């Protein structure tokens, strides 16, 4: 997922969760910005808050550490529901555990 596409990713994830599916979300590239703590958008949905709520409802979340660091973020700047992880450990595990892979990116 990337940038504003994160909102769509959360909507699909939550709809799947409500239907009883186990859902993992992984952010890479600009998608890592979705888990930045302290977002305060004025005119559109707060995807950070939505992801935190999704985490409370059992949606697993991780982002690429390299992408996170590349944008100047430090560990601890992520929302509590998200893990700063890696493509090799987290994304590969998510894919191997899943029946479907849905990519939201432009």
């Amino acid at each position, binding site marked *: 997922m990337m940038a504003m596409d994160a909102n769509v990713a959360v909507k699909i994830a939550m709809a799947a969760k409500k239907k009883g599916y186990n859902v993992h979300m992984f952010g890479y590239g600009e998608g890592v910005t979705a888990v930045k703590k302290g977002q305060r958008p004025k005119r559109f949905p707060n995807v950070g808050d939505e992801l935190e709520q999704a985490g409370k409802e059992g949606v697993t979340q991780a982002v690429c550490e390299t992408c996170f660091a590349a944008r100047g973020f430090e560990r601890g700047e992520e929302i509590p529901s998200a893990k700063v992880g890696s493509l090799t450990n987290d994304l590969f595990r998510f894919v191997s555990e899943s029946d479907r892979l849905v990519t939201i990116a*432009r």
Partner: protein
Amino acid sequence: MKTAFIVLKSPAEQDPTHLIKRFAERTESSVLLVEDGVYQATVAVAADRLSKAAAEVLVSKEDLEARGYAQSDLKIGRTAGYDDIVDCIMERTDRTVTV
């Protein structure tokens, strides 16, 4: 293989049908239009292209209405909630491709 194609871009940005036709037969293709992808169903030329590439077209109701359109404005397909979109991804198709 039954395939769900997620389209995020408007026809001004992209014609998704070239790729759709290369991945799957029309009868095995479902298209999910979200974000600016909903314009693919409101513009006649784009809708006509989609009709030749996919047997099913679902348009995100939320994203369509956010842009001031309704089911009656669609030239192809039907509106769907995200729950229906999930059903298409998980139950009616075998793989998902984002165009």
